[in-house]
């Protein structure tokens, strides 16, 4: 029974998620955020902010994918942050 309840809850959340995905776009303010701003806001949620020179451009691409999965960053956030870090290299 508990399993059914948990599955039901996740289904509800999943349905809500689907609605969000197709119904809620990011606001203009969020869409206009730069890679450097997103880098400063998101990294510090868990750890200190590394210098952009800490890794090469190719390594930042790998780290970007790792952090997208670990911190569940959005696609746009990840792309902007990685592009910014590569441009600083």
């Amino acid at each position: 029974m508990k399993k059914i309840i948990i599955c039901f809850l996740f289904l509800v959340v999943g349905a809500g998620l689907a609605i969000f995905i197709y119904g809620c776009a990011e606001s203009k303010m969020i869409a206009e955020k730069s890679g450097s701003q997103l880098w400063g806001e998101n990294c510090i949620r868990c750890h200190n902010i590394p210098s952009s020179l800490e890794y090469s451009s190719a390594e930042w691409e790998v780290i970007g994918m790792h952090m997208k999965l670990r911190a569940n960053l959005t696609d746009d956030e990840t792309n902007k942050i990685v592009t910014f870090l590569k441009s600083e290299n």
Partner: protein
Amino acid sequence: MGIQKFLFAVPFLFIFSKSYGQDTIQTEKNIELLSAVSGNTKMLLTGVAWFGFLYHINNTDKTTPKTTFNDFGFSPMFLWKLSDKFFFESEIEIQNDGTSDNSAAFDLEYAKLSFRLNKYMTIGAGKMLSPFGAYNERWEPNHIEKFPNAPLRPDDGVLPDDTHLFWGSVMGVDVRGGVPLGSAKMNYSLYISNGPKLHLEKEMGGMLQYENWNDNNSNKEVGGRIGFLPFPNSSLEFGFSGKYGIAGNQGDSLYNKIGATAYAVDFSYVKSIDAIRSIINIRGQFNSVTVGKANYQLTDSTTYTFDNAMQSYFAQFSIRPGMAGNKYLKKTEFLLRYSDVTPPKDAVWSPKDTNGQGGSIKRIDIGLCYWVTWSTGLRITYEISTMPDGAHPKELVVRFATGF
């Protein structure tokens, strides 16, 4: 003469710049093409190494040492971007296993292959860090954890066999992603895994082991975490986690319906305050695990039952004067943490007071971290624990951890 030389050079400069520009455009096109095909891999070897020291300040037992360099370890992490859609990540942990034979524990923390389905969803499979709460996936790595140790938890130092441990690794499949919600955003991780295993051995009856690589039953645990970041600057996050699975052995008529339900609430808040030239960070997590009612062996001929539920939580505050003028002060982070574990009070394996009654274990950590780089730092904490029997062990814990 000078003008003639200049006029002579101009056509060559023009041809060179044109061909260089075309080369650059062609190179960009090639990179774009290559990134879409498999085989264009990028790999990064990163990780953390650490060593530490422990001082039992008020240890009155004359048979055990008061001080020891007990903490060492090395965790290489392999990150491999196979293409824009495939990603593999793995971590191996080699550390002191804490036993008297001085051996090192060697463990595959995780090995997970992920595939990006679309911009909102990635599917992954393998041995993965449990997406239950925030601590396990995000704050636990030794180069990220600000303290020299983890918050109080049901591990070997507090309860036997890591029972009811709510974090660690699981074997299974997950889907995850981040979704913008106007000026806010949310993220999710939903998974299915082998689930927990119930211990039935005498003196261990009712213990729960989540690290269950070779499943003990056909039932699979379902669970996940939903995170909400209500502010546009992502400074605040709330996470809600839940999971449920059958823990009893397959075919065991007495225990094959005994399940375990767990939930957790986590939060984190980061704020830069110019007035005090500092960054503050508040984070915490509450966890609750409940196992279905069952009888367990007490002696060879008698059984007993108990309310098999465990709660634990921690809350921590840190402040780093990162904008201060003093070059030493700006690298120092001051830390305060309170944590609590309440095991099932009537279980034979839970710690008891002098009257044989179970109770909570509490701990306060007061410490600091001196950051040499963003991931390298010297962590020191003074911790005072309170055991159910009223004992107050006090320890000084030091760890130097370096991310690489």
